[in-house]
């Protein structure tokens, strides 16, 4: 029987939206992850959508996504008995993960300093909006605040609209992904030296890398990147670089990328379908031949350089729009990629559930909820020797009895 990578590691987590996904990643890798939940459960247990619309803490699908393979114990940390049990439990762990406001657990005898005094090998990971120290360490946080303060929101959206959030609580997810890296680095160190440590992750800092080039653009050129709808960092509309409506949805073309077939290959496709219109005539043919990464780099550096032929670019764009509307999004994706063009489908949830590649690779998994088998998204990676396994998320307090009994046995034994 194959042994998972984190076999034998016990994790106690005091997490909700911010840190849950960190614990889930470790749990799917084989750690025993025990989630300490407040009576009634935290925010994730009370966030729609619910399985079959049944608004109970065990049916919150967002909770499932961040809490697979875990155990659940309900303890009331506002109560002295609950705190004592939580402390006993935490001291059985190799790793503690928490995402409470700074100082909240310490005030309850469950902070890093309190625990490490008794267990020096403990890895203790804190995931918060702004980190453990600094003028904003005490700031109230939620995902949108992280995305705002972290610099990604200012880049997303149309200039006529408010800045957009990225779907999926990505500030929380980013912080959890960084926290899992920090936790595993600290675990490797602890297993080598016996010394634990405190891992501090700020969601605001986690998002910084996702500013793409905005940080460096300010640092090197003293320019702010701004949101530009679909254009990203491209200052003028370039045909073949953006989102196009299809017969049934949308597809994205990125034919100016440094890889894949070039713009004339895209024109070949239009011609094959009898829709190239006048793109084989001048001046369009020459411009089409020139639409590549070099031009992109030129106009990013000097938007005015596109000035003389902006009108022609817009005509080429219109021809493309008429062509793309004749295809379904899946056709555009499959046929475009067959021609080695950088084309992507704008997947809707159903497109992903039916995605030919994900299905052929047997990516989806499943677990039983009550008497029903539920299909579920698969893991982020596959390890050939130490399997990643997605287990059913726990019902609220499902393991309370079992875990408290084992604590009592431990106490009796000592």
């Amino acid at each position, binding site marked *: 029987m194959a042994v998972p990578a984190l076999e034998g590691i016990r994790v106690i987590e005091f997490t909700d939206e911010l840190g849950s996904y960190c614990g889930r990643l470790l749990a799917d890798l084989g750690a025993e992850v025990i989630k300490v939940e407040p009576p009634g459960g935290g925010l994730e247990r009370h966030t729609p959508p619910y399985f079959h619309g049944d608004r109970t803490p065990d049916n919150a699908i967002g909770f499932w996504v961040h809490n697979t393979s875990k155990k659940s114990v309900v303890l009331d940390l506002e109560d002295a008995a609950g705190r004592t049990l939580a402390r006993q439990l935490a001291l059985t762990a190799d790793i503690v993960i928490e995402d409470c406001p700074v100082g909240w657990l310490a005030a309850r005898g469950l902070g890093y300093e309190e625990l490490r005094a008794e267990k020096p090998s403990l890895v203790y990971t804190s995931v918060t909006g702004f980190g453990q120290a600094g003028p904003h360490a005490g700031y109230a946080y939620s995902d949108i605040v992280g995305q705002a303060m972290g610099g990604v929101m200012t880049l997303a959206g149309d200039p006529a609209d*408010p800045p957009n959030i990225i779907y999926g609580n990505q500030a929380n997810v980013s912080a959890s992904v960084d926290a899992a890296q920090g936790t595993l680095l600290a675990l490797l160190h602890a297993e*080598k030296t016996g010394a634990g440590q405190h891992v501090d992750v700020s969601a605001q800092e986690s998002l910084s890398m996702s*500013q793409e080039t905005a940080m*460096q653009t300010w640092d090197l*050129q003293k320019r702010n990147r701004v949101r530009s709808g*679909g254009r990203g960092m491209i200052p003028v509309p370039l045909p073949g670089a953006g989102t196009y409506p299809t017969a049934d949805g949308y597809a994205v073309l990125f034919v100016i990328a440094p890889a894949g077939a070039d713009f004339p290959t895209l024109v070949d496709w239009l011609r094959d379908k009898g829709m190239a219109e006048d793109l084989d005539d001048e001046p369009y043919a020459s411009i089409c031949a020139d639409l590549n990464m070099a031009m992109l780099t030129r106009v990013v550096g000097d938007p005015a350089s596109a000035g003389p032929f902006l009108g022609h670019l817009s005509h080429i764009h219109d021809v493309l729009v008429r062509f793309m509307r004749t295809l379904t999004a899946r056709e555009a994706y499959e046929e475009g990629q067959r021609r080695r063009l950088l084309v992507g489908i704008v997947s809707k949830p159903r497109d992903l559930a039916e995605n030919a*590649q994900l299905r052929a690779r047997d990516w989806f998994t499943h677990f039983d909820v009550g008497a029903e088998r*539920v299909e579920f998204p698969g893991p982020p990676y596959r390890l050939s020797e130490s399997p990643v396994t997605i287990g059913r998320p726990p019902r609220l307090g499902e393991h309370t009895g079992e875990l408290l009994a084992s604590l009592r046995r431990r106490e009796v034994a000592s």
Partner: protein
Amino acid sequence: MTALPLDGIRVADFSWFGAGPIAGQTLCTFGAEVIRIESEAKLDSLRVAHPFAMNPDGTFKSGYNVSGYFNNFNAGKLSMQLNLNTEKGQQLAYRLIEKSDIFLTNFTPRALEKWNLRYDDLLRANPSIIAAYAPMQGLEGPHRDFLGFGAVLTPVTGISEMSGFPNQPPFGVGTNYPDYVINPGHTVIAILAALRYRNRTGKGQLIELAQVESVVNTLGTAVAGYLANGDNATRNGNRSPIAAPHGAFRCADDPESSGSTDRWIAIACQTDAHWQAMCHAIGDPVAATDARYAAFEARKANEDSLDALVAAWVAGRRAEDVMALLQSRGVPAGVVQNAQDILDRDPHMRARGYYEYLDHQETGRAAYDGPVARLSATPAHHRAPAPLLGEHTMDVCERIIGLTADEIADLLAEGVLL
């Protein structure tokens, strides 16, 4: 010098663009020696992509070493120029792989097969290698050879469909978002888990990270919700199922915010107490008792007029002032910051010293994203700026691969080394 968790680990980094190199950089920052294999013949295009460092006269610097895009993902690595299209180049690659703990790549399987860098071949050369392959679609399957960069990955994975306002087309989020944290982060997590497994068993293994799978795994409830309930959901702007008001609201313009003078405050009232606190902070206690807004369900039912009320409150105020006011009452609120804010004006980011400024021989002093995870006993910092293209070819050939000066000269003459 502090011991770091990955001291003594060597990484042969055959990656390019964003997701692969960022994973390599994290390993490097935490102690690994990372050798980035590059070639002028198949250049990482980020080396010639904006933003470039500038000359004092306002012109852009040029060449392969002045891109902030590339440099920010490659701090501390060694750069070796090796032509993998030659047989001898491939042999040298294997001499490096034999002496490495980790092999890292995000090239397509097609490119890797051309260079004879399949896992089976790696395994023969180094039975305990941890080989991390992170192509867009995975190593097998009908879409295996599909091309992808972040610009395509964002729509294909559903992020574009699910983000933004419903009245706009799904144009994405302004960046190639999954390239920068999700995919490199997952790659590092898998590698660290494999290192622990190797520490315990002596066995290496194959890590396969299909970028599409890695991203869809983080896609909230969109796909899980479809699979469970058949709900083909779409984007819903900035609203939340558990908070109201929840969104970005326009404040007074800030002429000092360069090229980005419109200023916004993000607010999330997750509880009725947040809402009450906000009403009092803003100086409108009447709104606090208004039945249309007092309870969460009522605020959701009247969200359009609620948003209009909040918008009117904050209009004309400085975004920083609104943030300070609401935060003083414990209400989640934050300025929609731009890079200028984050680098120069955010007192918290400055106090924490997240950005590390490194002197680079061509760009001059430049900011780099620091390591996010702060480890109290083994704190990590970038040890060097990004390498010049091929800066360490000699060093790697002599010190690690063990070539003599004559051998190196021959390989340079033959175009194997560049």
